């Protein structure tokens, strides 16, 4: 337990060890720790960002889906409306056409009837004239009795 040169030797050894530790041991380890801490922080931040982006994307997806549904519904309703419109139009067209055809047929019938009447009247007039001539036994001068004939004819 004598105090001797060991005291100084120990101090020098101590300084050498501390210097070595400060130069070669401490900095690489602390740097590695700091680098890892930074990596972990970056990773967590990236994960956070990813989650955030996922949320936004999900929101956008639902919005798009909603829009698409709305648009589809609109299109369907429009199409239904248009179809109804078309049906109405077709109905109206058909009705019009039918009425027109009916009118045309009526007009034709009228015309036919009119023509038949005219024909009959002519024939009846000729028959009347022939009959009158036979009754009178003489020829009726068509020229002389034109007025008479015409008045008979118009009466028929």
């Amino acid at each position, binding site marked *: 337990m*004598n105090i*001797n040169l*060991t005291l100084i030797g120990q101090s020098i050894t101590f300084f050498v060890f*501390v210097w070595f*530790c400060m130069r070669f*041991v401490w900095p690489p*380890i602390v740097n590695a720790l700091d*680098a*890892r801490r930074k990596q972990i922080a970056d990773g967590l931040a990236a994960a956070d960002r990813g989650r955030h982006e996922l949320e936004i994307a999900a929101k956008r997806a639902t919005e798009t889906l909603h829009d698409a549904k709305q648009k589809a519904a609109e299109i369907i309703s429009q199409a239904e409306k248009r179809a109804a419109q078309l049906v109405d139009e077709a109905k109206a067209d058909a009705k019009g056409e039918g009425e027109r055809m009916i009118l045309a047929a009526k007009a034709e019938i009228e015309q036919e009837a009119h023509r038949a009447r005219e024909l009959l009247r002519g024939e009846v007039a000729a028959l009347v004239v022939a009959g009158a001539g036979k009754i009178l036994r003489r020829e009726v001068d068509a020229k002389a009795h034109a007025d008479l004939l015409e008045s008979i004819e118009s009466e028929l």
Partner: protein
Amino acid sequence: MAAETLSSSDYIKHHLQNLTYGQKPDGTWGLAQTPAEAKEMGFWAINVDTMGFSIVLGLLFLFVFSRAAKRATAGEPGGLQNFVEWIVEFIDSSVRGSFSGRNALVAPLALTIFLWIFLMNLMDLVPVDWLPQLAMMIGAGVFGLDPHHVYFKVVPTTDPNATFGMSIAVFLLVLYYSFKMKGVGGFLGELTLQPFGKWGMPANLLLEGVNLIAKPVSLALRLFGNMYAGEMIFILIAIMFSGGAVLAVTGGVLQWAWAVFHILIITLQAFIFMTLTIVYLDMAHQEHH
């Protein structure tokens, strides 16, 4: 396992004597053969066992840690790196907690102190006779010395030279940073102008001087005292081994119990030395007005 030819007192004394190398009275250089001879060698002698063990243990610590440091990556750490990082983070948080200034020296200093002292203290857990017996055998077999005159102390921190050597080194750092941070005037002012103002200068100097000197002395004596006492108890327990079967078994149980308790002490003492060093350096960095 006390040697049969030695009395208990001789056995204890033998265990408490360092292996000292120095100049003998007849002028030749060599290892001291008796405690008295070692004392006569005076200051210019060296305790071979203290220096040897402390240097080997320090190199062991630096070797393991520099290996880990060289391979340190920010990626997934391996087993050794994990262990080293655990210790480094522990030291780092201690330094952050106690040291408010900015100094790249303090944390590596604290790491070196903690692990070096811990390893030196750890030698205390090696059964007290193993290494000295081995040294006796080597001394007698290889160097032809009288085995009873080969002294060997395994725990460097039970040698006041080692603890004072470290505390003086810390003290020099405290003085250096006190002068550097506070300036010569600031540091001297701190020593002389408080607590009683400039008219109480002698009293101030006395109080502050004692305060300053007490730092390295208490630092060294605390560690030395604890380890010396622990070593002494191990030696006393070891004496029981030669006292018959009952005492030997009791001694074995006691040695085990004391060793378990000692694990706490060696760690605690290393931690206290480290923490106080950080605190003293922190005080050296602070400017009082």
